[in-house]
Structures are given as C-alpha cells and as structure tokens.
C-alpha cells in the first residue's frame, strides 16, 4: 500500500493530457516529528520556496471543507491553475489535485511514515501534464528529462526546508573575474 500511491502517480496515465507530462517521486527521511511535518504539509503556500517552477501559491476562499489553492508557474510564460486539497489524513497523508477546469493537470501526494518520535520517512509523488499542441514550447522545455530531474531536486529541497527552515544556496555570493569583464 505504501508503494502504490507514489508508483501509481508516476506510472499511471491518470490525466486527460497524460501523454505530455512529467512525474517524479522521492523518498526522504526527515529528522522531524511527523506532526510537525504534517502541519506544514497541509498548507501548500510553502511550495514556491522548494519548487523552483512555482512562482506563487495562495489559498483562495472556498465554500466547502476542502482547501482551494491558486498556483502560478513560471514555465516560460505564466500559467495559472486552481487546485484543491483532495485528501487529508492526520499525520498520514495529504493529497492535492488540479480542478477540472484547469489547463494544467497536477496531482500530488505526500505520505508520512514515522520511524521514531523525531524521525519521519516521507514519500512524495507529483505529476504534471499539459496539452502538447497548445503548450508545445513549454512541453519541450520543461516536460522533459531535465524537467523531471529538476522536479526531483525540488523534492530534495523540501527536506532541507522541513529540517532547517531554509534552502542551501550560494546564489548572490561574491566571486572573482580573473581578468574577464565583470557582468
């Protein structure tokens, strides 16, 4: 059962545009209590910190119990879509999916398996898909092997964020020019 969700998401053609997408999964051991991680995972607004392709994620008012989110990606041109939290089981899993009207199909699930009181195994899977004819350039640039690798790196950054609260980076640090023109 533990493998099913992540494997299903990455293998199965579940979306209307399923031939033109990317999927990635990752298993992490996070050095934090499951309750802390679950609390964070319930709110998608942290995703732009760890996922470089997302510009913004904001919660929007919803009528029912499910949470609604508006996401904006920076895949060459801005793409917006709405997603809802489709499943929340306390300290066990959170799943979210794009709404039916969206031009981007997205499905993600994050599951938690406590290893001890301070350590949690986290399994994450995400799938994106778009219409190839309409979004050809985006598909070729991002929905490729490199795009999948980038998505996997996004999931690695999630561990850094969950454990330390920030993402390791050297962007913006000084360096020399060795005689080349400064840019």
């Amino acid at each position, binding site marked *: 059962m533990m493998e099913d969700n992540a494997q299903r998401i990455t293998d199965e053609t579940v979306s209307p545009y399923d031939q033109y997408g990317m999927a990635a999964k990752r298993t992490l051991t996070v050095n934090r209590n499951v309750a802390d991680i679950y609390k964070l995972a319930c709110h998608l607004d942290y995703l732009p910190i760890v996922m470089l392709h997302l510009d913004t994620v904001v919660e929007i008012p919803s009528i029912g119990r499910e949470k609604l989110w508006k996401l904006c990606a920076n895949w060459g041109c801005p793409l917006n879509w709405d997603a809802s939290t489709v499943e929340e089981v306390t300290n066990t899993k959170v799943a979210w999916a794009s709404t039916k009207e969206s031009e981007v199909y997205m499905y993600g699930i994050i599951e938690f398996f406590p290893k001890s009181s301070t350590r949690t195994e986290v399994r994450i899977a995400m799938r994106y898909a778009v219409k190839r004819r309409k979004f050809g350039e985006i598909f070729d640039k991002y929905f490729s092997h490199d795009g999948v690798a980038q998505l996997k790196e996004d999931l690695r950054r999630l561990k850094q964020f969950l454990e*330390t609260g920030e993402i390791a980076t050297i962007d913006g640090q*000084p360096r020399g*020019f060795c005689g080349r023109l400064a840019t």
Partner: protein
Amino acid sequence: MKAVCWCGANKVQVETVPDPTIINPQDAIIQVTLSGIGGADLQLYEGHIPSTEKGDILGHEFMGTVVEVGTGVKSVRVGDRVVIPSSIACGKCEFCEEGKFALCDNSNPNAAAAEKIYGYSGAAFFGYSHLLGGYAGGQAEYVRVPYADVNAFRVPLSIGDENLLLLSDILPTSYMAAENCGIRPGDTVAVWGCGPTGQFAIQCAYLLGAERVIAIDRCPDRLRMAEEIGGAHVINYEKVENTLEELRELTGGSGPEACIDAIGMEAHGSVLDAWYDRVKQTLRLEREKPNVLAHVIQSCKKGGTVSLPGIYGGFINCVPFESAFNKGLTLKMGAAHARKYMEPLLGHIERGDLIPAEVITDRFTLEDAPVAYELLRKKEGECIKVVLRP
C-alpha cells in the same frame, strides 16, 4: 573586499570583489583575521580538483569576528570572536545530530552532482569546488557563514589567532585520524606524512595513549619537527632501503597496530611504483597517487587499523586490497567532523597539551597569497604551514 581567487592551474589572483551579504536568515558575516593555506588548497591550486571554476574564492581554514547576523541567528552575536569549521553543517539533520557534521544532509546546494559520483552527498565545504557546495572560502577579508549557530564556534580572547586557526580543520582532522585508530595501551602508531596534519596526528596519538609513534617522511625539516616537538621516532623513507622492513624491525616483527596516511592525494614516492603512479596521473588514467596507501596497508600489523583522514578523490587501483583482507585490517576514513572536536581540542590548547602555532612557519598578507601558494607548492625552505592575514 580583497579575496584570493582561483584563476586556473597554478594561478591565483587577489581581486577586489563585492562584500558578502546575508542570503539566508541563519547566515552570519565574519570579518577574517587569519586564514590558512592547506594541502587541500594546494590540490585545488594545481588544478587536480574538478568542478573548480575560475573566480572561485579559496580558503577552508579561517577565523575572525562576527560583523553581521541574519534574523534567524540565535546564539552568535556581532562582536563574537569565532573559528569556522571547514565543513558546513546544518545542525538539524540526523547526521549532524549524531555529531557526524561532515556528512550533513542539507548544506550542499549541489548535492545532486555529488550524489551522481558518491551515491549520497555529504556536507559542503568552504572554498573547495562546486561538487562540495561552491561556497566562497575564507582567504578573503569577509566571509558568509551559513547556519551560523552551528558553524561559528566562539573562542576566548586570551588565546592568539595562530593557536586557534587550526581548530577549523587540521586539528580536528588529526585528532579524528588518531581516534579512528582505536589506540590501546602499548600500541605503536605509524604516521605517513609530517605536514601539519601528520604533526598533530602524532601528538594526538600520544594524547590518546599510544606508547610510541613512528613518523615517516622525506623532508628533513618536517622529520625534525616530528621528532623534537611531536616526540616521534622518525624514518626518512628516501634514506632507508625498505620502509616496511624498517617498521618490522622497530615493532618486534609484527608491524604497527595502527597506521595513519596523513598524505592522501599528495603522496610522493622514490621507487618505480611512484613513477608509474605519476605517469598514470599525468595521463589522467588515475586520479590518485596510491603509493603511500599501498605501503600503509602492507605495513600494518595483522588485525590492525588503517586510518585515512584524506583527502582522496576518484578511483584508485594498485591498492593491495587482498593484503588488507587477508590481514583482517579495519579501514576507517572520512573527512573530519570538525565541529564535533572543536570544544575538546580548545580544552587541550588551553591546558597546553597542544600548541598549534608551533607548525606555522610562514606568514603572509592576503595580497601576497600568490607568492605563498608557490612557496608551499615547491616546499621551499622549511615551509610547513602558511597563514594569511588580511
């Protein structure tokens, strides 16, 4: 600010570059008061380390004063005098919590690249190639230190910079190398290489209970230091017929219980196999110089321990692994978990058990770094440890 930048093989330049800034909330900015040039820097300087890019600021050993802290820094304050460990630790992952700071899960922003080569990425290091993070190093006037609450180790004003700087890398490396030997009363420990790491491996081996330490090198000045300051019995491998036989005679025919290779990638050699190593290295057929490692394994007593503080890179062949297997050797290795050892080693310094300044032989200003690198590369005179003062 001024900074020492790598500009190609055997070329460094001191350039004026922007000052570092706070990038993440847990960062601190340190004004450097002293930095060192080590064997690892020499490997970078000579172009042996892939993923080093022109313009990279070098320096993995440095100390100074905190001049700015990010909003997430809780225990370090502006004005604190600190030594910074060479390996960068987050303090929150399972490895950091176990004291294995050099294996940190989170500090390397290029972990994906390291993972492709190593299987799993360890910690990032200051000033030591992009495979290990690409962080700007401390041979500069200012440095940005991530996760400052963990990585900025506060030190007292009562001890001079030269007796504290080596807490950043060499002392922890040497101490961990000796600790990894599992020294028991009566043991003999042999140390190959009498550079700064070897010098302190000798002293730390005695601190940890070795009855005798035998030091092996070819440089007379280094051997003299090992004998006079470290108290080691010395062997000049260029003046004996066979180092292994010499060690056999000195240890009642059994060999040393523990052997430390304090040379790593820098190994020289005076016999045909060393020539072979050099040719292969030149042709890039092999990235290591395994001559010393082979001798270390061959020399070790059956059932003994080989301690490898590094540094190493790439694959190596011509290593007598069959010998290691048939003698039931334990091989212990790894980059030093510097942050773990800084507090106890400071205690040793305060009590006078260790006097790190004794190995510092050459002092330069930051502007003279190119001269300093060439001096160390050629090992002219009595050059053993070089420091730079901005």
